[in-house]
């Protein structure tokens, strides 16, 4: 069975501090991976997607970056957090050519 794991579950960080959020998918080979961001009470916005290791496409510029160092790992990071980065970050995967998008349980980020 496929599993998707996100870490950490929640973070409280200071403005200007660095951030690294992680996502791993087990049980699937070469999935398409995605990062989504959701402001409190808002809709979901796709940030990045990756079809293969080492390749990441940016969808929205929010002073964040993403990397895919391994087939089953997707990392979201920034060197300097802004207040506007607060929100809920969701990792998702889909098998290429498939229909259903599966989401992780998310990381709730509060920037103070």
């Amino acid at each position, binding site marked *: 069975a496929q599993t998707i794991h996100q870490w950490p579950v929640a973070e409280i960080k200071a403005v200007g501090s660095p951030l690294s959020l992680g996502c791993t998918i087990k049980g699937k080979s070469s999935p398409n991976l995605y990062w989504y961001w959701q402001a409190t009470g808002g809709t*979901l916005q796709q940030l990045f997607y990756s079809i293969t290791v080492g390749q990441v496409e940016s969808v929205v510029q929010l002073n964040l970056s993403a990397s895919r160092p391994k087939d089953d790992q997707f990392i979201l990071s920034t060197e300097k957090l802004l207040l506007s980065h607060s929100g809920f970050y969701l990792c998702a995967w889909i098998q290429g050519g498939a*229909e259903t*998008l599966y*989401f992780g349980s*998310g990381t709730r980020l509060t920037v103070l």
Partner: protein
Amino acid sequence: GQQVQQSPASLVLQEGENAELQCNFSSTATRLQWFYQHPGGRLVSLFYNPSGTKHTGRLTSTTVTNERRGSLHISSSQTTDSGTYFCAIDLTNSAGNKLTFGIGTRVLVRP
């Protein structure tokens, strides 16, 4: 303008009532999907329905692509149906599956 519009923005139901959530999109898009977000944040896929009608339990998804609209029908609502329902469209048809989400419909089902 907004590419994916959902209505209503919120809905309060008495347990047992039916509800219909609407999704209108601005282009001849494909890959219409419905997602449910638990109050705690977890997001699950309900339907992938590019056209036609699909049923799962008490939920029915109908998509009329040439009229650029979709709907999600909840029958005999239960308190566990409370949460937010999102409609999402792939406006690019690209390999990257760039889904654009609507603002969601917040549903509260009272016992």
